[in-house]
Each structure stands twice: as structure tokens, then as C-alpha cells.
């Protein structure tokens, strides 16, 4: 039973990771981060069931809260960038190099 849940979690994590790497739209990259966070949440919840204690489920609550805070900060930064430069693609962010 635990194997199927972990497989689901690992698959979701990989989808998020691949999306994060190949997609260039900043908002889509943020969404991929959220997918990865939720994959981890599934893994925590299933381990909590398997291990027979509540710690994993408590961790899920904290992780959801942190993910929400992270999404808020990230969206604010993306909005500030788009307002100034009009750039919404990670390929075009090339002001700092060397």
C-alpha cells in the first residue's frame, strides 16, 4: 500500500521538477514548485500512516503554511519584475552575468 502512495509522490515530484527545468514561464515555474511541495506532502502523509504516528501529518500542515508563504513572496517578486521590465520568461532575464 505504502509503495503505491510513494510512487504517486515520486511521480508528482518528478513532473514538477521536469516542469521547473524545461518551462520558461515564471508563473508556470511557481506552479511547478507547488506541485513539488504537494508531492512531498503526500509522501509525509503516507509515511505517517505507515509509521503509525501523527508527526508526518503535523508536518504536512506546517509544510502547507510554508508553501503558501513562499508562493506569496514569489508572486510578489514576479509581479515586481513584470511591472518594471515586462519580462515573464526566465530566458530573458539576462541583466546580471559574468
Amino acid at each position, binding site marked *: 500500500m505504502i509503495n503505491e502512495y510513494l510512487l504517486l509522490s515520486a511521480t508528482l*515530484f518528478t513532473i*514538477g521538477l521536469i516542469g*521547473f527545468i524545461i518551462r520558461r514561464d*515564471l508563473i508556470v*515555474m511557481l506552479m511547478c*514548485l507547488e506541485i*513539488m*511541495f504537494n*508531492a*512531498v506532502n503526500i*509522501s*509525509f502523509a503516507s*509515511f505517517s500512516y*505507515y*509509521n*503509525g*504516528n*501523527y*508527526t*508526518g501529518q*503535523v*508536518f504536512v500542515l*506546517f*509544510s502547507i503554511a*510554508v508553501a503558501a*508563504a*513562499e508562493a506569496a*513572496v*514569489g508572486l*510578489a*517578486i*514576479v509581479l*515586481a*519584475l513584470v511591472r*518594471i*521590465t515586462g519580462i515573464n520568461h*526566465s530566458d530573458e*532575464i539576462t*541583466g*546580471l*552575468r*559574468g
Partner: protein
Amino acid sequence: MNIPQIPLDFNALIPEITITAFASIIFLLSLLKINKSLLVWTSVIFLICLIPLIPVFEGKAFGEFFLNDFLAIYLKITVLLGTVISLLLLGSYIKSRLILLKESIALILFASLGMMLLISARELISFFVSLELMSLSLYALVALRKYDKRANEAAIKYFMLGGLSTVIMLFGISLLYGATKSTDFIFIVEAVSKNSELSLAGLSLFIVGFCFKIALIPFHMWSPDVYEGAPTPVTAFISTVPKVAVFGAFGRILIEIFQNYHIQWSSFLIVLAVITIIIGNLLALPQKNIKRMLAYSSIAHAGYIVLGLIAGTQEGFNSVVTYMLVYTLMNIGAFTVVIALNEEDIENYKGLHKFHPVFALSMLIFMFSLTGVPPTAGFIVKFNIFLQAIKAGFTWLVIIAVLFTVVSAYYYLRVVMYMYMKEPIKSPNSFNHRELEIAIMFCALGVLILGILPIYLI
């Protein structure tokens, strides 16, 4: 399913609780029309008063979940010293109207609160939450100049890569929890060897998150861009203080909890340390922007510091802790001179000693210390870390590190050579704020005194 009973003794947490309350009050006050310099000085005086109180609250809180022992106190004092100096730098920036947002003061306080909790956390949930409290405040700090294109670009790069590293590390934590049935470090130590495949998988993902935070090559891509784009006081802050906390917290976990897996994680870190020391120093050579040069230099320094962890002994970790104190002083000091001169191009440092003899002299001290030349403190701590690595049998690693320390002398001493041996091009339009003078004097004297009297070594 049973719910463990946790005793409610939070004496050891009192410094953190005080900072939480104080940072919240400062955050609310910054919404009112209050003089910003007043807020900065209030925070500085508050933190200075707090520093001698931290050793008083030695002990444990909430059972075993929060530990405030000697090493944690040492690291926390380093964090608070770095925060105080960064606040002074921020105060000077606010005076010269380069940063208008007053929230910056509260953000720095919240970031240092996250670091203090991170250092003491003995449990994975509080460890993760305090790490995120630190990281989220830092992302916002980098984006402080919200109408500046480069600052936003730096912030987006920092946020995206930092978020990715957080998620990878969280996945590692979930595997560790699955393997050990607990998030409490005491239980993890006992259970970690029973389910070795799963714990090793978790440990490897955990280390990846660690390497992102301290910017070991090849996880360093964010660091030069963030250091260049962020406002310089914030750069001084992120290049030093979070690294103190991250090295302290992660190093402790690696050395105390994963002692049985020392061969596995140290072989991974050895490869990264060698790459970091070689490539970090080589990439610093052609840099023309001093903030970027210091970014690559701090990458290389992370490589040296990891040698102390690779040794895998308690003495090795102690040498890391003392290194962090000196590293904080010398790196923040170098950035302070950059702020005071308001000049990022190394070419414009030519002939500096004619205009600003004090700034030039203190920059010379910081550059010698970063290279590791006696009698500065940088020499003693570097020597100490290399000594511990040799004692643990990594002589070839130390030989590489020493060779590339010599390479690093080229780009550090080039700044000194420009300042003292070249004819000036133009006089830099510098700031002369009292905050900057205090910060520079404190760091320069600290580096010299700690170099002559190494009483702080543990």
C-alpha cells in the same frame, strides 16, 4: 497512535521570544511616520543588549526539541554581531536614501530570528520552519529596491533556486521521517542505521539542500548574481550571517546524527569541496566588479569551511564555528568599505589611500585576512581548519586548498595593489556616516585583535 507529552519549559527560548516581540513591534512602528534612523539605532542597541544575555539562557526547552548549549551560544552571538553590523550598514543606506522601505529593518530582525532558531532546533519540523523563516525574509530583502531592475532580477533568481533547494531538502526530510519514524533528532540517531537505504536517500537529498544554501559549486549559480544585484548592506548580510547559521545547523546534523554515514556524505562533500575551491578561485580572477569578486571569494571560502566538516570530528566542527566568526567580521568589513566608497568597479579603487587613508588601510586588513596572511585572524582560523583536516587524514585535500589559497592572493592583493601603488583616476564620492565608521572600526579591530590574541578558539 499515541501523542507524546512535551514539557512546557521555555526558559532557554527567552532570547528568541524577546526578538520575536521586538521585531513585531518594530514592524508595526515602521508603518507609522517615525524617523528611520531612530528605528535602526533602537534595533542596534536592543541587539547589543541581548548579546551578553544569551549565555544566561543556556539549557534545553520543550524537552529535547530546543537546545541552547555552548556551540549554539557561540553561533548565536556570531549571528547577532553580524546582524548588528548589517543594521548599521542599512542605516547608512537609508540615510543616503538608497533604500526607502522601512520594512527592511524588521525583515533583517526576522531573518536573524530564523537563524537563531535554526541553530538551536533539534527537531526536523522546527528546523524546516526556521530555515524557511530565514530564507523568505532574505528573498524579500534582496527585492527591497522594488523599482530597480537588477535587484528584482537577483531576487527572482534567488527565489527560484532557493525554492527548488527547499523542496528537494523537504523531500529528503520526508524520506528521513519515513525511515526513522520520527522527526526528533534523538530518535533519528538511534533509528538511522536500521533502515539504511531510505535514510541514505533522504540524507543525500538533505545534503543537496545544504549545498544550495552555502553555494557550493555546482549549486552556486544564484550567488554571484544575487550578490551583485542586491543592495550592498543586504549583500553583506546574506554573504555571511545565513552561512553561519546554515553551517552551524547542518554541520551539527551531519557530524552528530549521521556519524555512522560519515564515509558516504564526506565522499560527496570532498568532490564538491575540491571543485568549489578550484573553480571558485579561478572564476574570481577575472572579475571587475568588486561585489562579484567577493561573491566568488565567498564561494571559495565555503569550500575551505567544508573541509572542517569533512574531517568529521568534533574538533573539526569547532574549527568551522570559529572560522564563521572571523569570516563574518572580515567579509562584512570588506562590504562596508564598498558601501562607504559607493564604488563597485575595482578600477576605481586606484590610488585610494590618497583620498581615504582609513578606508584603504581597513580594506587592506580585510583583504589580507581573506587571503589568510598573519597576523590577521583569517590566517589562524584557516590554519586551524586545515590542521583538523590533516589530523583526520585528508592531507591531499589540504594541499589543494593551500595551493588555491595562493591563487586567491592574486585577486585579493590586486585590490590592495590598486589602492596603494597606482595613480588615482578620480576621487570617489564616498559616504561619511557615523554608522559606517563604527562598523569599519569594529570589523578591522576585531580581525586584528582576534588574529593577535586567538582566545576565541574552541
